[in-house]
């Protein structure tokens, strides 16, 4: 559990984060979103003490951050950034096994762990373990970045625009793999993004910020259906109900086929329905049951 109590961070005159109160539950994904410069990265970097707050306290596991030794705190908090920051002089496996090495694991165990993680993030260990970061594409490097953050099985994960620097298709695949990994590993994640759809797709809770001030903190559905002020309403956009469709995941949709391992959402179902000759189509739900879907049913499903 990560708790913010009245956390404020200033850079000179500028207040980057202003009186932040927020709690991230164990095993949940909290997505920080907001316009550029609103203080997302600053918030994230205070959690692993790359930055110290000027006011307020942050607690991790009910213990104030200032009572932790920074280096050993960071060993328990995986960190992924957009520029990836792999160490250029180390091979992929050495990069991934970095935290285990700092924790004093034996070399054979580190190698084994690196291979496991390459598998988890969908890279073939045979092919990738001995490469240097300069030999990876942007998307591969980001996967390795995620693998490195997960290597020592830390309970916490901080991700700053982890899927930012790749094309939309790769990003969709990365998001999908992240969701799969998260559903298995149940980390406590704080993730920063610019992309509202990504936030809706990945988040249990969304924290929407503006000029350092938290505007609304709630589930994707809450943010979309009941914006608390004009700023939030504008931010989620007039097509916010269409975005809602993405929050509902289905098991299968007749006539739909997506990328390997990906699952359709209500949005895909609506698209199929619009092009179907009948007034309804068959979809499979997540629990395995089947259902006839028409426009009224879709409305019911997005407005719980």
């Amino acid at each position, binding site marked *: 559990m990560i708790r913010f109590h009245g956390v404020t961070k200033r850079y000179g005159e500028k207040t980057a984060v202003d009186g932040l109160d927020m709690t991230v539950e164990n095993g949940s994904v909290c997505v920080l979103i907001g316009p550029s410069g609103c203080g997302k990265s600053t918030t994230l970097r205070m959690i*692993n003490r*790359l930055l110290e707050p000027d006011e307020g306290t942050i607690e991790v596991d009910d213990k104030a951050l200032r009572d932790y030794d920074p*280096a*050993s*705190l*960071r*060993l328990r*908090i995986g*960190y992924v*950034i957009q*520029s*990836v*920051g*792999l*160490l*250029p*002089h*180390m*091979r992929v496996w050495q990069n991934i096994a*970095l*935290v285990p090495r*700092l924790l004093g694991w034996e070399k054979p165990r580190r190698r084994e762990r690196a291979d496991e993680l390459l598998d988890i993030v969908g890279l073939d260990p045979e092919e990738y373990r001995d*490469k*240097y*970061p*300069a*030999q990876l594409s942007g998307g591969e490097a980001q996967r390795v970045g995620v693998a*490195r953050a997960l290597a020592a099985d830390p309970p916490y994960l901080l991700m700053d625009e982890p899927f930012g620097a790749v094309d939309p298709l790769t990003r969709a695949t990365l998001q999908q793999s992240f969701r799969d990994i998260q559903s298995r590993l149940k980390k406590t994640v704080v993730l920063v993004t610019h992309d509202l759809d990504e936030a809706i797709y990945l988040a249990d809770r969304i924290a929407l910020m503006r000029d350092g001030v938290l505007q609304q903190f709630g589930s994707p559905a809450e943010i979309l259906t009941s914006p608390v002020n004009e700023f939030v309403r504008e931010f989620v956009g007039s097509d916010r109900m269409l975005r809602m469709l993405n929050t509902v995941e289905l098991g299968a949709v007749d006539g739909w086929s997506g990328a390997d391992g990906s699952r359709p959402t209500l949005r895909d179902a609506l698209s199929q329905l619009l092009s179907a000759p009948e007034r309804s189509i068959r979809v499979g739900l997540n629990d395995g049951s089947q259902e006839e879907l028409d426009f009224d049913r879709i409305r019911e499903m997005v407005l719980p």
Partner: protein
Amino acid sequence: MIKVQRWLAANSQPIALLPVAVSLVPAAGIFFMGIIHLRPNRIADGEAFRFADLALPVAPVLALAITAAVLVVAARWARQAEIPALALWAVTVTIVPWILFHMAAVELFDAGRLDDLARVSPGGGVWVALVAALAAWHELLRSVRRSLRGLVVALLLAALAFVAVQIASPPLERISYIVEYNVRSDRFLDELLQHIRLSGSAVAFATLIGVPAGMIAYRHRRLRAAILDVTSTIQTIPSLAMFGLLIAPLAALSRAVPTLRAMGVSGVGTTPALIALTLYALLPVVRNTLTGLAVVPPSVRESGQAMGMTRRQRFWMVEVPLALPVLLRGIRTAAVQAVGNTTVAGLIGAGGLGWFIFQGLGQAATDLVVLGVIPIVGLAIVVDRVFQGLQRLSARGEVEGGTRA
């Protein structure tokens, strides 16, 4: 045959025209410039003999040279078998001048002009051909892949061994440099070792002092300018002036402190030489330590921190390995410079190969000067190559597959 050709083609790239031309043109010098230089004694003016002055076998040499040259041009033009043709050319232009030099010496000997006092040395044509050979080998090495490079180097060594045999066989023991060497062979080895010792210790000291100084300059912005200013000002002091400046204080120190005198510290000799050389070697080491640390990307540094590295771990696991190639480049510069600078140490009684140069200058004996210069140049090249290799090794990750933003 075709298989071999294909393999060669797959492991090389087209040869470049300019170096080939650079190698073809001066080779012609062998026919127009002197082949052998004869002096009746050590310091007398000599006489150069050209191809036309001697009864050398013009026709076969000309035929061989022209064939090899035509083959290179044709191969390059047809883009076929370029590597074998260039290799043939390189070998030819390397060994033929020395064969001719040897033949010329035999002829002079037979004519009774090579008495006990007389000295011979290669004429201008042989030296110009050497330039041609360098260009040819360089181009050959450049245009083959790493897999073939060993083969080319083996060929080069074979050619050099052949040349060495030519030089060593009678009557060429009369080559002036070798005579000079034979007279002082013990001294030569001593001074060579002293040269290596002096420059090697200077670089070692400069590294021991310069790396921490560079690290301090990196950590403390305020000291940075001061440290750089001091080290670069030192470099602007002419070496003779530096030795001069050190003599008086060191002499005084040695008089005042008997222990130091007992350790061999004095105004002349090894101590001032070592101090001066170390001071000169500081700048490249300090500057490259600083640059090396400064070019470690902040994102990489922070990523190490965010992974949970302590300051010390970050320094040893991130900053040092990433700064190492740049640091090694600095030590390389320092070492090559030190090999050259150590020459001047000969002037203040510290020995080294400079001793031969200054002796030779004093006696107007050019051969003696050359005897000092050649190993200095050789030493500088060897040092440069060794550090280049180390640098490559240390930069593995960045070099392989190129760098990516």
